């Protein structure tokens, strides 16, 4: 059995229909569990005080903002190379989710930055590249809506996705490229000295899992909707011709 079998809309609907209830329950449990643990049962940080609780939203949202674009890049490349419609529709389905996560990262970052840095916004490399990534998400969604032919829309949005990947990567590594920004380096590291303390790390890990599972759940729901919408359009077109 090959992975490409899932590119068949019928097979995708069958498999995603089976997976969806379990993934949804896990996503809900991890999100709720992680946020309750982080908000109610972790101490204040000695430097940042209670604002450290924003980490449980800001870091997973920022991670998923970039990862969603990477997922869109992979599925767009599959569309360009192999012309599987499900992969193009999965990229389309992921865009509003990625845009929402980027917006959450920007909003929570501003709310966290004000008391810590004394400003809501700074044209810092990471913040700026994140704002550009958000604009790319908006442009990507607008392009899908603007083009009537779905295959042409998939082609052009795939090109936009490849171009936007530069900013997705830049938003991840901007802090390493330029040192003059306000934003600190990665909060999460395999190096124990650099990583956040365990008391924050474990609930954060649950929240990250929750955000990943929420992303998977919503991508499955939205891709299924796009497949149905495509079939609906085909049936209506056939009706008009009859």
């Amino acid at each position, binding site marked *: 059995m090959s992975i490409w079998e899932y590119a068949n809309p019928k097979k995708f609907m069958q498999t995603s229909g089976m997976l969806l209830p379990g993934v949804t329950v896990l996503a809900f449990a991890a999100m709720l569990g992680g946020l309750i643990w982080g908000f109610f049962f972790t101490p204040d940080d000695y430097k940042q*005080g209670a*604002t450290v609780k924003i980490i449980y939203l800001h870091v997973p949202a920022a991670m998923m903002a970039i990862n969603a674009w990477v997922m869109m890049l992979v599925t767009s490349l599959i569309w360009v190379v192999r012309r599987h419609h499900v992969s193009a529709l999965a990229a389309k389905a992921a865009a509003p989710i990625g845009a929402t996560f980027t917006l*959450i990262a920007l909003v929570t970052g501003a709310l966290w930055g004000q008391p810590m840095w004394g400003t809501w916004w700074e044209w810092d490399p990471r913040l700026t590249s994140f704002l550009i990534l958000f604009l790319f998400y908006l442009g990507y969604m607008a392009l899908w809506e603007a083009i009537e032919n779905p295959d042409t829309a998939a082609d052009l949005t795939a090109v936009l996705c490849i171009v936007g990947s530069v900013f997705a990567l830049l938003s991840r590594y901007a802090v390493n490229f330029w040192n003059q920004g306000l934003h600190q380096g990665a909060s999460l590291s395999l190096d124990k000295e650099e990583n956040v303390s365990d008391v924050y790390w474990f609930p954060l890990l649950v929240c990250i899992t929750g955000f990943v599972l929420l992303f998977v759940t919503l991508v499955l729901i939205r891709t299924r909707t796009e497949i149905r919408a495509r079939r609906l359009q085909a049936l209506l077109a056939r009706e008009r011709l009859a």
Partner: protein
Amino acid sequence: MIPDLGKYAIPVLGSYAASIALILGLVALSLWRSGRVKRALAEVEARQGKSNG
């Protein structure tokens, strides 16, 4: 039960309120569109099934 957030209550609670509102909005919108498309497809399939049969 509710932790004392002190002078940081507004940024912390604001972050949670904004994020939860955005996530719930996205979930609601996704489910609403899913239901709408599913119903429309079922309707067209039933109509075409009838006319074909």
